């Protein structure tokens, strides 16, 4: 099956964010809203384990939610006291995220195009990279996200844990260890482990890297 072009993929996300309910649009389309809620909470708990259970309203952690969609994770992390920037390519999703408010700052940007004078304590990228279909753009995105992680900070990216890459349908290319590990080692990050979502039949989990 031919993969979507960049323009088609952008249109796909705008339409999906327009038509689908809050959690289904950024979550899993096969699940209803209630199941997606469980799915979101499961992944939030995983993020908490990996970002840590400390927060400080006075001197917060700075987080980047890369590919934030409608901003559910950004808002929840902001409610923990963290300072969150959310970026996404879809204006429709960002309109929704801004309307919800809740603390994060939202910006329209591709993952490869985000520029900042500040580095982040953690950059999270939940269920986005396997929707970047072009390998060169995927690599630019991963490199850019890695460059935004400060010393001691973490990069958490969702993908599967097979060795190889594989396309599914026309809008997903899952990439595996052979793609992530050498690339991020080259970016100066240390691989800390892969943490499965363990949600129903999902094969996805979070790759955790630390800048040391």
């Amino acid at each position, binding site marked *: 099956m031919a993969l979507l072009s960049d323009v088609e993929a952008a249109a796909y996300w705008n339409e999906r964010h327009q038509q689908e309910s809050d959690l289904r649009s950024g979550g899993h389309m096969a699940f209803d809203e209630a199941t997606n809620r469980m799915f979101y909470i499961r992944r939030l708990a995983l993020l908490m384990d990996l970002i*840590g259970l*400390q927060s400080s309203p006075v001197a917060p952690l700075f987080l980047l939610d890369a590919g934030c969609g409608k901003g559910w994770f950004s808002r929840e992390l902001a409610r923990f006291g963290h300072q969150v920037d959310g970026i996404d390519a879809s204006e429709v999703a960002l309109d929704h995220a801004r309307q919800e408010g809740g603390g994060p700052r939202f910006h329209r940007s591709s993952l490869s195009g985000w520029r900042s004078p500040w580095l982040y*304590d953690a950059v999270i990228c939940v269920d986005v990279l396997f929707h970047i279909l072009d390998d060169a753009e995927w690599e630019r995105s991963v490199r850019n996200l890695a460059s935004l992680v*400060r*010393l*001691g900070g973490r990069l958490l990216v969702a993908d599967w844990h097979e060795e190889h890459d594989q396309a599914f349908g026309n809008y997903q290319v899952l990439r595996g260890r052979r793609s992530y590990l050498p690339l991020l080692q080259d970016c100066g990050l240390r691989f800390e482990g892969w943490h499965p979502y363990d949600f129903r039949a999902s094969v996805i989990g979070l790759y955790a890297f630390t800048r040391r």
Partner: protein
Amino acid sequence: MLIKELPALAGGADSVVWAGGGNQDELLRALLPMRPETPRRAADEPFDPDALMIAFVGPDQPPDGWSAALRGLPAGGRLLLLLGWPVADLPYHLVLDPLVGAGCQVLQAVPVDKANRHGVYCAVIAARVERLAPLRSYLDDSPITLDGPEPGLPALLRLTGEHTFADLVVRPLRRRLAELEAGDRPASAG
């Protein structure tokens, strides 16, 4: 971070050496609520490697009491400094000079929640080192370790690079803050 989480963060406190400042009894009760009987040693006794040196430094304290005790800290000795200034106003030059002068590495600096009633706003964990201890992330709450792998050249290049760039980009912000503060001030009479 809570004040009672600090001794574990500092790598434990089988005994404590109070190096000055603050209300020792009150602060030790807040730090070690479950272990009020923790042995205390005098700063001029030989320093036990499992002991934690603790001091309070704040606006109303003479700055030099604890720094004299610091010079008695042997290599590997750990120090927990409780600081009596809000994070945004922390005059850290007052503590950095004595720490570096005594050969100590600042391992972690953290805000302390809900300890204002004890006059504590933030804390620093440091240790006397003979080589660099592993670097830590902000708000990492696992106990510090001194004997892990020394940071390598890539980490040190990153550290100096981040320091240099952060030092540059923070300048316009500091300037902007000064402008805003000046704007907030009522115009002087006359």
